């Protein structure tokens, strides 16, 4: 198959799953005739009809709550929240309901629910349409959190998420939609909880995910020209976290940098840094560092947004900081 865009890869996967299983349903805003604001669900209403492609009013709380109810009663449900910023409108349903039902009921319930949503800055969409809120969900026991970086991974991970009988928050970065990559036509699944080494290297382990993988790979290329050889670990799934792959890499390089677009304070990096020092303290030659967004909302104006969100140069500086310590 030729190169496929991130959007096409997602659409192809949704379509396949809906063709295979008549009890798979989509629900969300503008996902019907319009095909979603990024075009992910284009054509699905026409193919599967309004019972299985539910175009909703603007009611995030009821979208998630009803998706949960459907999932609890046998419908494999994929709910879409247009921007991750709007998941906060449905936070009771996500945090108190979706994440807890199975546990509270003594493990009696399956929740085959995927919440697909979209995150990230870089396009001047300002404070309420640019956030990276994965750490909120990462904090809640009972939710799996998936953040693919390539069309290939998106397909394999979305399949795994749909097949999973637990709630999954599946987060797509808005700058990834137009990116292209190789996607085989045949069926494959990427199990949740498996990181991937996107670039092998010896000197520093960079742990990252989602769109930051691309910035990190570009930074790595630049560093290579300067004679610095880094390893890039793409987490792909934040929870379950593939600590083993992280630790193996750190035991080899003895240095680690975590890169993410979410705010620095209490971000994913804080947890990972802590886990590394708990499990691999004796291997470390330098403190684990983080490159993350500043602890402010995302501003609109270009120079401000650029200052807040980390770029290739920030990653290069981060690597140099980690390398400068003995």
């Amino acid at each position: 198959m030729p190169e496929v865009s991130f959007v096409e890869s997602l659409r192809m996967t949704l379509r396949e799953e809906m063709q295979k299983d008549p009890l798979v349903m989509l629900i969300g805003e503008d996902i019907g005739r319009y095909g979603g604001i990024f075009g992910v669900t284009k054509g699905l209403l026409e193919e599967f009809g309004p019972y299985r492609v539910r175009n909703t009013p603007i009611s995030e709380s009821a979208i998630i709550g009803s998706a949960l109810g459907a999932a609890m009663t046998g419908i494999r449900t994929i709910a879409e929240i247009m921007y991750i910023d709007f998941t906060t409108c449905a936070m009771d349903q996500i945090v108190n309901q979706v994440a807890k039902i199975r546990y509270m009921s003594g493990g009696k319930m399956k929740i085959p629910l995927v919440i697909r949503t979209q995150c990230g800055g870089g396009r001047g969409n300002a404070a309420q349409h640019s956030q990276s809120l994965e750490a909120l969900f990462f904090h809640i026991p009972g939710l799996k959190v998936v953040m693919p970086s390539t069309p290939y991974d998106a397909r394999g991970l979305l399949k795994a998420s749909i097949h999973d009988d637990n709630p999954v928050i599946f987060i797509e970065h808005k700058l990834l939609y137009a990116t292209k990559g190789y996607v085989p036509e045949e069926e494959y699944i990427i199990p949740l909880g498996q990181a991937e080494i996107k670039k092998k290297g010896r000197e520093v382990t960079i742990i990252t995910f989602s769109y930051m993988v691309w910035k990190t790979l570009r930074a790595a290329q630049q560093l290579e020209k300067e004679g610095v050889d880094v390893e890039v670990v793409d987490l792909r799934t934040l929870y379950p976290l593939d600590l083993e792959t992280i630790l193996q890499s750190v035991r080899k390089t003895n240095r680690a940098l975590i890169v993410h677009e979410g705010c620095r304070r209490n971000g994913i990096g804080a947890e990972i840094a802590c886990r590394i020092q708990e499990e691999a303290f004796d291997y470390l030659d330098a403190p684990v560092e983080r490159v993350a967004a500043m602890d402010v909302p995302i501003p609109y104006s270009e120079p401000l947004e650029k200052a807040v969100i980390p770029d290739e140069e920030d990653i290069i500086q981060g690597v140099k900081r980690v390398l400068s310590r003995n």
Partner: protein
Amino acid sequence: MVHSIDPTLHLKMYEQMITIRSFEERAIELFEHNLIRGNIHPCIGQEAVSVGVCSPLRREDYMVNTHRGHGNCIAKGADLKRMMAELLGKSTGYCKGKGGSMHIADFEGGNLGANGIVGAGLPIAVGAGISIQIRGTDQVVACFFGDGAVNQGTFHESLNMAAIWKLPVIFVCENNQYALSTPIREAISVSRISDRALAYGIPGMTIDGNDVIEVYKQMKEAVERARTGKGPTLLDCVTYRFFGHFTGDPGRGITYRSREEMEEWMGRCPIKRFREYLFREKILTEETEKGILAKVKTSIEEAVQFAMESPFPLPEEATQDLFY
């Protein structure tokens, strides 16, 4: 009826409607030249709602705005220069470039800000109403929201609270009949949004939102009720946006609206209608109109120039303004 509004006010309203349209047209142009980032949500076609609603308001009255809010800002008296500068992300903008098109706030002008979260403004309006009640002033709050917002829990929670406490809030639905691609008829099962007022025991009206005089009159009554402690009103102003949902919407929304429908509504252009009325009533002459158009053109161009010449914020300003 007609003459219950004085001619000067008529002309001011006409000028405001033209200003809004010209501002939007210019903003779209600047967006197309990559001078504005993200997206803008033009309110072209909905000018009668902005102007009809804001005209009976005083400067100290509050307004809570939406993502499609440039027109409401202008009608509430915002400075075009500072608005345009905000759209261009400049430090002289209303929010020093931090907010952009969707978040213009002008607290001195009573504008409590615009929201990127559909339905989030309604509870804030209720809070401003509570504040007025406690402070004992006769201010009111004009709370704008779209037809899409009426299906958020916040709509119902807010109308109910405002009703039980008789708060001075006028809930103004800018009902352009679409929430992004979703037509209102597929999103609610009552025939009119104003029917919902019944459930909260408050007055509710569905009105022609392209008739600025009609909007003005209904708003004036609602404001009087609010100022005299008689509580909230729901005004459902039926209108139409001529452009797409946002600047990225293909074919101005042709993927979900028929060409016939779009043409029909453009024929009901609120500016054209008001203009015809003003000429018929001899309030407007060719001569005065020329003057108005020239004045608007100058003010828009001055705003653009001001915005273009203004500096961008410095990167280090990113960490400022988070806390007081």
